[in-house]
């Protein structure tokens, strides 16, 4: 496995390709070996991060900018809670926990699966050809091939807020890390499913963008302000409930039963998104696009 730093000339976006082309075995051979793919995931993160560090000033300014960006909303909530002691049963501390969980989860998604929001464009532009030729799982490779640098600001912000709320509580920290990873996989699955629709309807970029906006916005305000119908959507179609609200309840009052239900639900979403993508991939037609990658 060799590393090649690349710039995608079609988008101008800097990417890092960790695949060696010497072992190409064709599109149909994607052995689902979990340890191998976890290792590959680690390599993607490592090399994407190394690539980002080549432009250190840009990386730091983007991450710091995102961190500050989130801080402004904390100020907003602080002002609101000067006026009112609780909103639908949520106090300032609980709302901060919502923000910690949401920021860490969305940060993790866009660090690890930095390309997931661009999936419709990749499919439409015939960009999957590159990944189909590689000897690893297409679904993972296409999503992990880039990293969103500002997402580091979200991730760090989430953990800083967590420590401000719970201090150094090792059990809660482990749970928070677990929920960040599980929630990240869940969000990745939902966004990937929205992007996968492109295989079936030609262009789902608007739907994918709306799914992202709705999921994010439903994750940032106390769920108790919404009516039952909206809550139903938040625990099915746009599972902000399983991403943020159920985890924060488990952080406050832990139960093994609740944890197992949460992880099982996350697994169902992730598996469903994967199967949906594989079904969609059968409909993929290459555009024979010739791209110069340097």
């Amino acid at each position, binding site marked *: 496995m060799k590393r090649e730093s690349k710039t995608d000339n079609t988008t*101008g976006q800097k990417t890092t390709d960790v695949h060696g082309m010497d072992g190409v075995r064709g599109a149909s051979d994607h052995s689902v070996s979990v340890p191998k793919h976890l290792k590959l995931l680690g390599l993607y993160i490592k090399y994407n991060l190394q690539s980002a560090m080549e*432009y250190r*000033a*840009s990386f730091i*300014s*983007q991450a*710091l*900018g*995102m961190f*500050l*960006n989130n801080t*402004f*909303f904390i*100020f*907003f909530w602080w*002002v*609101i809670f*000067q*006026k*009112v*002691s*609780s*909103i*639908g049963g949520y106090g300032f501390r609980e709302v901060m926990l919502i923000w910690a969980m949401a920021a860490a989860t969305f940060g993790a998604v866009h660090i690890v699966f930095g390309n997931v929001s661009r999936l419709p464009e990749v499919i439409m532009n015939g960009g999957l050809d590159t990944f189909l030729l590689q000897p690893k799982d297409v679904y993972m490779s296409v999503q992990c091939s880039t990293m969103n640098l*500002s997402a580091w600001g979200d991730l760090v912000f989430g953990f800083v807020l967590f420590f401000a709320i719970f201090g150094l509580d090792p059990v809660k920290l482990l749970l928070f890390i677990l929920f960040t990873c599980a929630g990240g996989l869940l969000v990745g699955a939902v966004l990937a499913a929205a992007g996968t629709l492109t295989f079936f309807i030609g*262009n789902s*970029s*608007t739907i994918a*963008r*709306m799914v992202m*906006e*709705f999921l994010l*916005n439903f994750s940032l*305000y*106390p769920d*108790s*302000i*919404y009516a039952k119908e909206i809550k139903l959507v938040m625990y099915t179609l746009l599972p902000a409930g399983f991403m943020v609200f159920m985890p924060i309840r488990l952080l406050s009052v832990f139960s093994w039963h609740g944890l197992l239900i949460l992880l099982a639900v996350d697994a169902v979403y992730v598996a469903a998104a994967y199967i949906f993508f594989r079904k969609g991939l059968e409909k993929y037609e290459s555009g024979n696009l010739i791209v110069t990658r340097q």
Partner: protein
Amino acid sequence: MKGLHKYLLVTRTSIRSNLAYTADFIAGSFFFVLVIFIFMQLWQAISISDGSTEGYTVNRLVWYYITAEIVVLSKSSVFRSMNEEIRGGGVAYKLNKPYSFVMYQLSDGIGQIIVKLIINAPLGLLLGYLYVGGLEGFRWESLPAVILSVVLGILLNFFMDAFIGMTAFWTEDNSAFYWIAQKLSFIFGLLMPLEFLPGVIKNIAVLLPFSYIAYAPARLLTSFSVGTMLDILPVQLFYTALFAVLSQMLYLSGAKKLNINGG
């Protein structure tokens, strides 16, 4: 008038071009409905919890937020466009054209803004009426001042974005500046009226340009008086003119150090 004709053509082209992207329209409208809906729920919950809302009723808060969102969401993509032009070297093709670069961007931006306003303004009015009814204490004579303030707020937002976008001449990545300025305008006027802020912060916010993007028109609509109008409009006009001049100066200064390789 002849000098303005070319800019009107740019605006007309921009309107046509933006009207072609129906999917973006739909996405933008859904986002607008979503944020209005969430804030309606939030203010309602705060009001049920007997929170102090500085004399604003839920009705006035909802109308305040709708007006502020109409201004903020009806913005052009001038920051992104300038970044692309300057970093990608596209600005080189515009240097020798018989128009001002800033005016060109403004004309193009106005096209985008008009299209967004056509959607956002009626949609906002409809949402407000459906949810809380007409604005309590609305005065028809406030309308010209509110419309002027909305226009000035949108223009101020444009020139501030253009000003930050122009820093691409000097910086490798200026997105952090943009996010911070954007969030300052959210905190100082969009998300809540300035009256909600603690005393010292409120006094500082009134002096800053960020408050004159969304707060000014929303405040004028929901709490109109001649005194408020005279407090707000001249400052809004001053900041809009200031950032227009600063954008032009920054462009002239940046264009001198422009270095383009290749063709």
